[in-house]
Structure formats: structure tokens, C-alpha cells
């Protein structure tokens, strides 16, 4: 039965609207900026009335940036592709390695299991700048420098601990009795893992995968140091609009809109899994 009075409903609606306005206004403003020229963006005072233009999006998509003084080649779409490829592949590899490992840490007690799990988590503690120089040297010696394979490998520092620890918590929350019952029915270990444990843990795996994707997408420093300009992600590529001859605010805004779209869509599509997965994995029964 709904016990909320009309006044309370109105006040709640206003409060929610204000919160939404507060959090969404920067994104809304960026969206508006993406349809303006630099000149209109920099008007004093700023105005929401302007003649919209698609020139910023056109510049990003065609790869030709008109600056105050010249026409520049930009690689934004290539940066966007790199971000998507590196993040998606890294998460795929991370899931392939991390989910079985998480299951092992959750279910199989063996000597040093906690130490190993903690060591993997500690990868998240190390500041990237601390490991970058030795990594650069090793990558050069191993021929991994400036390769997608090398970057995907180093991205495991970001995604693997995240996947492992989130999914481990989730596996631990699944009652072992369910697995035992399936084993007693005559199925082997692997069949139990594939048919029972994995489907039950799927929301947690989806949540971990999504978070790992977002963390990988937002990474900046690894590709900057370890790869050439043609393999840079969008986080580095977006800086190309800050030039000595001026800041291209319109193109930055359009770049932000394009670059947040994949993660934004992914978050909306997987929102249910994200909330369910994280909350269930976090509660101990």
C-alpha cells in the first residue's frame, strides 16, 4: 500500500530532479558545446542560444582538424578504436584467466592460496609510474614494445585483480551444497563448474567485466609510454585538441561525447547485473 502523501511525492520529485540536474548538467553542457564553434563557446557571458554546427563531429570522424592557423590530421577515430580493442580484448583475456582462478581461490584451499591472491591484488596498489620504466626496458628486450599484445598483457595489471577479487567473492556466496548435489548426481568437476557454478556467478562476472572494461578504458599511462602514436587510446588522443595555437573546446566536447558513449551504453545495458552482481558478491550469508 502506498502511504506517501501528495506533498511528499512532489517534494521527492523536486529533490530527485535537482539531484539529476546537478549530476547531469555538466554532461548536458558538454553536449551543447559539442555543437558549437570555439568562438561561440568562448562568448562572455556564455549562452545557450547558438547556431548548431556538426563541424566538430565532422572533424573527428574525417580526421581533419581545422585550427586557427592550419589544417591538422587527427587520429581520434583510430584512438577510439584502440581504446575499444584494448579494453575489450584485455577484459576477455582477464575473464578467461581470472574466472577460473577466482573459482580456485574460492573453492579449493591449497598452500599459499591467500598469498597468491593477495599478490595479485597488490598489482592494484603499485603506482603505474613505479613499474613503467622497468616495464619499458623489458618490453624492448622481449620485442613487446609498441605491440597490441604487449599492451593487452600489461592491461592485465588493471583488469585481472579486479575480476579475480570480485568474482571470488561471488563464488564464495554460492552455497557449495548446490555443487555437491550436482557432483553426487554423477557429474565431474568441470561439468559442475560449467553447468552450475558459472551460470550462478554470471551476474558477478558481468559486473566484474564491466568494471574492468571501464577501468581499462580510462587508463592513460601504459599506452602512452609503451606504444607509438598509432596505438594510443582515446584518453591520450583527446589531448591532441589542446594545442599551442589554442584549445579546441568544441572538438574536445564532441570527443567526450563519442568516447563516453560506449561505456555509457554498456553501463545502461548491464546496470541490472552491475547492481545485482556487486551487492550480492559483497554480502556474506
Amino acid at each position: 500500500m502506498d502511504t506517501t502523501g501528495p506533498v511528499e511525492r512532489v517534494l521527492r520529485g523536486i529533490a530527485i530532479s535537482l539531484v539529476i540536474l546537478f549530476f547531469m548538467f555538466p554532461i548536458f553542457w558538454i553536449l551543447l558545446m559539442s555543437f558549437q564553434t570555439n568562438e561561440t563557446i568562448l562568448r562572455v557571458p556564455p549562452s545557450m542560444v547558438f547556431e548548431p554546427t556538426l563541424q566538430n563531429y565532422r572533424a573527428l570522424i574525417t580526421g581533419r582538424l581545422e585550427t586557427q592557423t592550419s589544417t591538422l590530421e587527427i587520429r581520434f577515430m583510430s584512438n577510439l578504436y584502440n581504446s575499444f580493442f584494448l579494453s575489450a580484448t584485455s577484459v576477455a583475456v582477464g575473464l578467461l584467466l581470472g574466472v577460473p582462478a577466482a573459482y580456485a581461490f574460492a573453492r579449493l584451499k591449497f598452500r599459499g592460496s591467500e598469498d597468491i591472491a593477495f599478490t595479485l591484488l597488490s598489482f592494484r596498489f603499485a603506482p603505474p609510474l613505479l613499474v613503467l620504466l622497468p616495464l619499458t626496458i623489458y618490453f624492448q628486450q622481449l620485442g613487446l614494445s609498441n605491440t597490441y599484445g604487449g599492451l593487452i598483457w600489461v592491461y592485465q595489471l588493471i583488469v585481472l585483480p579486479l575480476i579475480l577479487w570480485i568474482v571470488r567473492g561471488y563464488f564464495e556466496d554460492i552455497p557449495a551444497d548446490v555443487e555437491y548435489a550436482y557432483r553426487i548426481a554423477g557429474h565431474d568437476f568441470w561439468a559442475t563448474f560449467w553447468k552450475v557454478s558459472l551460470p550462478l556467478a554470471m551476474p558477478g562476472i558481468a559486473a566484474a567485466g564491466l568494471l574492468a572494461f571501464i577501468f581499462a578504458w580510462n587508463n592513460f599511462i601504459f599506452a602512452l609510454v609503451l606504444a607509438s602514436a598509432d596505438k594510443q587510446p582515446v584518453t591520450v588522443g583527446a589531448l591532441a585538441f589542446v594545442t599551442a595555437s589554442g584549445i579546441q573546446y568544441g572538438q574536445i566536447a564532441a570527443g567526450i561525447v563519442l568516447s563516453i558513449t560506449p561505456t555509457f551504453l554498456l553501463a545502461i545495458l548491464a546496470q541490472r547485473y552491475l547492481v545485482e552482481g556487486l551487492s550480492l558478491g559483497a554480502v556474506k550469508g
Partner: protein
Amino acid sequence: MYDKEKTLADAFVAKKIDRRELLRGMSALGVTTAMASVLVNASATRALAQNGFDWKAHEGTTIKLLLNQHPYTDAMIANLENFKELTGMDVQYDVFPEDVYFERVTAALASRSSEYDAFMSGAYMTWTYGPAGWIDDLNEYINDPSKTNPDYNWEDVLEGVRKSCAWNGQPGGELGSADAKQWCIPLAYEQNNLTYNQKVFDAAGLSVPTDLDSLVETAAAAKAAMGGNNYGIGVRGSRSWATIHPGFLSGYSNFGQVDLTVGADGKLSAAMNTDVSKTFHAKWVDMIQNSGASDWSTHTWYQVGTDVGAGRSAMMYDADILGYFMNGPGNAEAGNLAFSAFKANPDAAAPTPNIWIWAMAMSSFSTKKDAAWYFLQWVTGPEHSLFGAREMDLVNPSRASIWADDIFRAKLSSSYQGYVEMHDVSAPGASIKFTAQPLFFDLTTEWAATLQQMVARQVPVDEGLDMLAESVNRQLAEAGLR
């Protein structure tokens, strides 16, 4: 190329016809102005190939460059095909945005990577790279006639700029001394002078400031005249060494002041707390408090430039090329900006702008140094500099011969009021005014932080400078430099 076009371009390079005749001739042949420029440069390259130097010595070799995203790089890339044709070499390059560029350079050099043979650098950065053994002394190439083409004309590079790229590696050692190593070669450089909004000055009946006192007064009058959130003068204010090096140090050094003094024993001491320095700081702080941006402490190159280009500030005391860019299309005040050399000290003979130099340096870990030098001498040579200055935005070129070029001067004078005169007046006194030493970035950043405290009224100027000097001296002593 067709013979008629080629003949025209060659005639222009040989100075048998002028630019107007060239363009008229090309136009008659259906060639656009832009294409005419490329053809002229191809012709200049052919002339270079005839100078008796073995340009093909490294034919087939591929070198790789690390470049900063900048109009200078655009000029380089636009002309690259001519270098390839001249030498038969191939050139690969990575271009990174300026915000992350030096991190990338440092990572490549610190890891002793042989990936890049040469790279763009600021002169200040070579004070770190050189003593670390990461870059080569280019004197051995410049002075070797078997490696350097006879038309390179090294002495043509402006003396102050040339010497600012050379240091003997001794803390406090004079730049460009006889024993200095040439760590880099200038591509182009920036002087710090006044860029002002002519429209605002005319409307408010203001005169161009001629010294620090009149700068302070004019900035206040401009702010009052503009009203609103607008302000009188743009100078940098972020907590970075880059706040000190443009207008601030240019004005400061014009009063004969230095950052550090070098004793007879070679030891360094802070010199920011002299009486003259305190007076200068007090006026500077007063100017920012009364007529600067309200968010001055966040202002970097970008904010200072954007505001003068958008008409929010009446003038700026910063890099002349920043004013050059902001006077171009896409800015609200395009065409309204004018330039003036600035002498802060009324008793000084001439302006003494501190400078920033974008230069080329050679990685010590390159495995193709001789080939890389071919590129360096071409890209810093007279032919490419002329192309960049005339057809692209290679301002300010570092060669005297380019500044003597009528076409380049006419190009500037037609759209950038007072730019050529400003350069002519201040170039003789233009050089790096800092003392070269390994703690440069740390100490200069602390100087900027102290300036912020003074402007925020957290510390009086006299006391702040005494504290700064004490801190600098302590750090110098800890580093064994005092």
C-alpha cells in the same frame, strides 16, 4: 612536374622573378597558390641537392622521430617529402600532444631506447638530458664538413638563440661558453613581449606601456574601461616553472636581476631577495591583484592566450607567438591584436626577453646518428626554415636570413601589426635568462608557488622572497651546489 611550372619555380628561387610574377605565372598555368609554394620548395630542394654535398650518403636508411604536436611540427611534416627526395631516406615519426610529450621523451631516454633517433626538445630540458648522457653534443657534427652541407650556415642562427641551446654542463656555467656542448639546435623560438588589443586601447584612449610602471597603470585603466569580468593584463600564474619564464622573468632580467649568482668558486646562491628584486616583485604582485584575472593562479599558456583572443583581457605579457596564434581566425579578437617590444626598466637600453626554444636533439641511443644528423641539418637549415616561415607557422624562425626575407616580413606585417618591429627591437637581447643548473625545474616551481602566496596575500613580498632565498640556498647546499 611540368617543365613550365618548374622553370618558373627555378627562376623564383634564383631571384630572377619576384613572388608576384611567380604567382601570376603559376595562375596562368592553372596552379593554385598552395601548390605554387610546394613547387617552389621542391625547387629550393633541388638547388640544395646541387651544392656538392653527398645528400644521398644514407639513401635507403629509415630514421624515426619523436615530435610534439605543434605548428612547427606541421611545417616539418608538410615539407618532409622534399627531404625524402633529397636524401633517399625514409622518415617515420610519432607525434604526441604537448601535455604528455615530455613524459614520453623522458620514458624513451631513461629506458635507453633506440626507437627514436632524434626528437623535439625545449632548451631547458636539455639541462637534464645532456648531463645524464641521453643526448649527443651536436658540435661534432656541425663542425665536421664531411657531415654538414656547405650551405648550412650555422652562424646564421641568431646568437642568443644558438647559445641558449649550448651548455658546458657545469652548474651555473654560462650558456654558449667556449667549452659548451651544443645539446640541441633551434627550430624556432618565442620571445616574451606585449600583445595588446588595439580596439580596446583605442576605445579607452590608452597608450602602449613602455615600462613596468606604465604597464601597471595601463592594465588598471584597461580593466576599468572594459568592465564586467574582463581584466587588464594576462600573465601566467599556475604553480609551475612555466609561470616564471615568460613575461615575469623577461621584465625581471631587464632590471639586471638574476635567479642565482655564481661565486668565484663556482658555487650558486639565491638572488631573488635583492632590494631591486623586491621592488619588482611588489609591483608585479600589485598588478595581478588589481588588474589580473580573478583566477590568475590557474592560468597557464592556454588561459592567457584564450582570454586575450576572446577579448576578456586587454593585453598579455607573454610569448609573442601566442599572440600570433590568437590573432588568427577562430578567435573573437582576430585582427585586433597588436604587438610591441617591452622594456620593463625605463633605464634599460633595450628589451631583454627570456625565450623558449623548440629545438631538435639527437638521442645518444640512436643507432643511425649520421643519418639522423642529415635530417637535423635539413630541418634546421635555411631552406626548410624559409618554407616554414613563409608558407606555414614557423614563427619565430631562429635564422637571421629568414628575418631578412621580404616575403616573410610582408606576410607578418600585413596581418600582425607591429610584430616585425617588435622582433627587430627585442631579438638582440633575447636569450635564456635562467642560470643553467640541475635543480632548475624544482627551484623555479617553488618561485612560482611563492609568487602565488604573495598574490593571495598569504605572505608579504619582502618576507616571501627572503624565505624563498633561504629555501633555495638550502636545496642548493643539499645538492652540493652551494
